[in-house]
């Protein structure tokens, strides 16, 4: 009998939870705020679904409800991606090793 591909995805999911568990415990507490903003940015990879939704359908009618929802989701996720990565970058820049005070 063939294994349903769903099982493979489930395996990826479960194993990723374990990876997440160990990786996140190793994050130093002083970087917990950047951790939140970067996880926020990467969870916006949901934009791939939004792009598929936005590009779906025939080219003579790009304004079906499903397309419009896709467009909206794209811009929401894009706010997060750009905002999330850049604000993380801004924060991490502040954690640069400072020269000791004279």
């Amino acid at each position, binding site marked *: 009998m063939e294994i349903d591909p769903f099982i493979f995805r489930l395996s990826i999911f479960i194993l990723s939870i374990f*990876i997440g568990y160990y990786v996140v415990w190793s994050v130093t507490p002083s970087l917990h705020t950047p951790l939140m903003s970067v996880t926020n940015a990467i969870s916006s990879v949901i934009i*791939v*679904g939004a792009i598929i939704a936005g590009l779906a359908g025939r080219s003579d009618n790009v304004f079906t409800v499903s397309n419009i929802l896709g467009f909206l989701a794209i811009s929401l996720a894009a706010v997060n991606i750009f*905002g999330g990565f850049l604000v993380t970058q801004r924060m991490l820049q502040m954690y640069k090793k400072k020269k000791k005070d004279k």
Partner: protein
Amino acid sequence: MSANLSAIFYLISGFLFILALRGLSSPETSRQGNFFGILGMVIAITVTFLSVGSFSIGLIYVLIFLLVGGLIGTFIAYKIPMTAMPELVAGFHSLVGLSAVFVAISAFLNPEAFNLGSPGDIKLASLIEMSIGAAVGAITFSGSIIAFLKLQGIMSGSPITFKGQHFLNALLLISIIILTYLLCSSQISNFFWILIAVSFLIGFLLIIPIGGADMPVVISMLNSYSGWAAAGIGFTLENTALIITGALVGSSGAILSYIMCKGMNRSFFNVILGGFGATKQSASTENKEQRPVKNGNAEDAAFLMKNASSVIIVPGYGMAVAQAQHALREMVDTLKKNDIKVTYAIHPVAGRMPGHMNVLLAEANVPYDEVFELEEINNDFANADVAFVIGANDVTNPVAKTDPQSPIYGMPVLDVEKCKSVLFVKRSLSPGYAGIDNELFYKDNTLMLFADAKKMTEDITKNLKN
């Protein structure tokens, strides 16, 4: 692009996201980590465009919306003050939630585009995954909006409770399961709409009873939810990058919530059920006898610190409110010029989100190797001359160690009282979030400095320089 090839690229971007989080294990590697994250995102988006392949007129709109969102995000990222980080993160979570809802609805209306069957005949597994993604997304959205309003001060930070609240929430949660079942067995779209509406309501009801100072837990929890929502959508779209990311973010948020709860010695459910700090307020006002406190000014504080050889700074949410981090840094610089050793002690739940204080200190150019966590520094208080508490309260209350009746009993606290002298900057003698008096105020070695945190710090600096 073939489906197999794009799947491999999605796997690569998932892998890069893992590296992005891995990088945060130390400040030195963190910027590289962020770069990996960006790279992963670029790969995922590019591959999606290539795999859809049909460059119809819709592509123009997709790019326009992408650009508009990107510009707004960039603008926000550069304009936002560091003190507003908790609000920003809450706001961002709501966007992830809402876009998950939109994608789920879009897939529901147009399942062919996602290879999920046809309208009215969507694959059972996809329907379940879609419902989970939409429901969790909707809860994340409305919950984050409430958290945002509370943090921003538009909505009062005090808990809103009413009779039968938990019962209602439980009922609504059960109805979600029933609606999912009905939707799957009948494929009637109305069940899907009701499911989403109920989920919005749950998110709203779940967060209103939780008070302002419990926000670190709430934000972490919503962070986790946004991850699970993404994972749910990932299963629907059969997309590995989304599944991996969703799992990473989901467990990250869950761990942060756990750390925050532990920092308050409260169970997760105790926080989530809410109402903390609301009921006790009345009790503390009743037996309010006026106990004497020692009242000092900037001059006294400067004198004490000048004669100290080591000072520990304990910042809290009040510092963020007063935007005192830069003034504080200046004061510390002056102290260091006088050869006084200065370190910072950060309680896990100081501020309104995990790591809040660390970011503010970093913004003020405080080197991160002078900043210590509770376990690292707690033994040092006994050897320090002065503890300078600025904007923190409950996290220093010795009652947590001595009085089993206290609502904060058992919460790990900073052993501030072991210092030779304690300087406590505070606007008034009012109790903190937990609604209980801080024993520290009345100790012989405590000097209260009643003033705005920023103003007081600046005055002390002036006095130190004289």
